[in-house]
């Protein structure tokens, strides 16, 4: 069977550069490098694997500033077939609800779709909300934290997902939306030839006018939540220094653990 697969990706700050300035209590960012959200790389890889097995087409879609097109070209270099960027000042400042609403309109415009893959969460916002919210807007089932998937039969997919207690195996009819975790695969890198070939590849840019959306439900004005204030935080404590040989250090640590309510193991204590 031939699969129409959509992968939602997000451009995030390359936060490996984030450090705190000890005196001004602020974030230091050397440069403003952006990258593909790490979780989305697994979603894209999985889409390419499903396509390799079943045939079909992979469309990557993102909502963001114009420079996010670069990210989508990277996805094309890896093997995606089509790239769409929702970029319009009117989309800016969207919360997860307005984002999901806009993405849903874009997915509908793409036409028939069997499988939507997203990363479990974006590492800048860390909300993990857009995937489930988008599935609801499209009226299709979703699973979060999927760690393995295989197409089981005609228009069905067998998934293993991580839960708070362990794992669940769930079979789903398509179309469905899955958010994936790192365990699912190891993303590939593009070869030089593909990378160069797609440097100038066309990315379709869609504005709010290209979508069937209620303009009162997109972007900042269409958002349900509103950031009232933002404050910088810093973890800085003047911690106690523990010196001495390992045995003494261990004793002191044990003393702290006891103070915090820890007791030596008795049967069945282990949770």
């Amino acid at each position, binding site marked *: 069977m031939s699969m129409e697969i959509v992968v939602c990706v997000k451009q995030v700050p390359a*936060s*490996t550069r984030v*450090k*705190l300035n000890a005196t*001004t209590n*602020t*974030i*230091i960012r050397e440069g403003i490098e952006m990258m593909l959200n790490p*979780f989305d790389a697994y979603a894209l890889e999985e889409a390419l694997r499903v396509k390799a097995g079943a045939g079909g087409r992979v469309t990557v879609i993102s909502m963001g500033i114009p420079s996010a097109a670069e990210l989508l070209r990277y996805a094309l270099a890896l093997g995606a077939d089509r790239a769409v960027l929702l970029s319009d000042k009117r989309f800016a*400042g969207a919360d*997860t*609800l307005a984002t*999901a609403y806009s993405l849903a309109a874009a997915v509908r415009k793409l036409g028939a779709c069997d499988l939507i893959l997203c990363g479990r969460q974006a*590492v*800048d916002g*860390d*909300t993990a*909300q857009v995937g*489930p*919210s*988008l599935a*609801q*807007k499209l009226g299709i*089932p*979703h*699973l*979060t934290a999927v760690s393995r998937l295989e197409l089981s039969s005609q228009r069905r997919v067998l998934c293993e997902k*991580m839960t*708070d207690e362990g*794992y*669940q*195996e*769930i079979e*789903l009819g398509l179309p469905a939306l899955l958010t994936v975790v*790192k365990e699912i695969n190891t993303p590939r890198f593009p070869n030089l030839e593909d990378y160069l070939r797609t440097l100038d590849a066309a990315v379709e840019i869609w504005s709010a006018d290209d979508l069937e959306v209620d303009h009162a439900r997109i972007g*900042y004005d269409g*958002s*349900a*939540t*509103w*950031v*009232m*204030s*933002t404050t910088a*935080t810093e*973890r800085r*404590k003047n*911690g*106690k220094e*523990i010196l001495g040989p*390992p045995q003494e*250090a261990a004793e*002191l*640590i*044990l003393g*702290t653990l006891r103070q915090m*309510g820890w007791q*030596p*193991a008795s049967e069945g204590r*282990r949770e």
Partner: protein
Amino acid sequence: MSEIRIVADKCTGCRQCLPACPYGAISMRAKKAFISADCVFCGACVPVCRFEAIELFTEAPAQEGAPASSGIWIFAEQSDGKVKPVVLELLGEARALARKKTNKITAIWLGPREPEQFRALIAQGADEVIAVADPRLAQRDELLYPQVLTRLVETYRPEIFLFGATGFGRSIAPRTASALDTGLTADCTRLDIDPQSGLLLQTRPAFGGNLLATILCRTRRPQMATVRPKVMRALPADFSRQGSVRLENLDISGLAGLEIKSARANKADSPGLDSAEIVVGVGRGIGSARQIALYRRLAAALGAGLAATRAVVDLGWLEYPHQVGQTGVTIAPKVYLAFGISGSVQHMAGLAESTHLIAVNKDENAPIFAAADERVRADCNEVAAALLKQISGESARE
């Protein structure tokens, strides 16, 4: 619409705000900061400016007034018919909120009929339990639950609806909020009531824990949030508290659910990060994969969970479920024993502020020491072995 501007008289051209912008929207023009159209009004630059030269006006989006609603709802997530610990924390927090705003607290139970659990919910702070006791709800179902919750919300119109930020809560809350077209704030670490507006102030870490954002849902109802486990405090159970139980007669036979084929719990060496009061964390500084056995034994002896940095997982020393941090899980134990962990921002983002951090590291410049409550500058494997020996000795004496 929001507006951001640089007050030219105050801006000294110090450039401090340039790297603070996650979107690269600030540049220099005529020796003053200039904010381009790429700005999304996140506010990250505002506290950076020591001269208060950046003014951000985030006026609430123009929307109609909020619909009538009342009461605080807590989603009483259960597993095998037992309420999860985070629910009790939510009830404790809800009581604190209810003191600032007269509000009935309702626990929403989906699952088998468990009168003892209902009594426990009331003892822990609920005024009322609304239960949909249907056999199909015994197993937590990401597709079925949101439909049931949506119906309940549409019937009773709560003002606030809180979920534990468990894996399941973070799956069904956004789906439910999306169905209701209302706002949802993820993974809150602080809740309060705004004295003026009576709105729920929802505070959460953003940008890898470097910023704390306080978020409001002004005009849609309910105001929804998921709350990070182990951050709020449960009240002692008071079985003299009075409360009512309403068994909701809801026909859910027509609602679609998932086909859950099997479920398995993590094995004995499970990371146990969700519930453990002590977590032992290992970083690349432990030296090699062979050392993992020592830390497994130490974690077992302490009754602790076992956590790892991304580096350790990438090296294949431990599996992904152990990974704590921005791309792993977040934890909030009472004590975190960090062995050979340098303390990257990404790793620290997974650890609650309230946790007592004991860091053991050879490298005196390890960033983790700045955030530690106790700093042990030593060979981590030697300290871990000594600790294990002492604990084993103690257990043997018992």
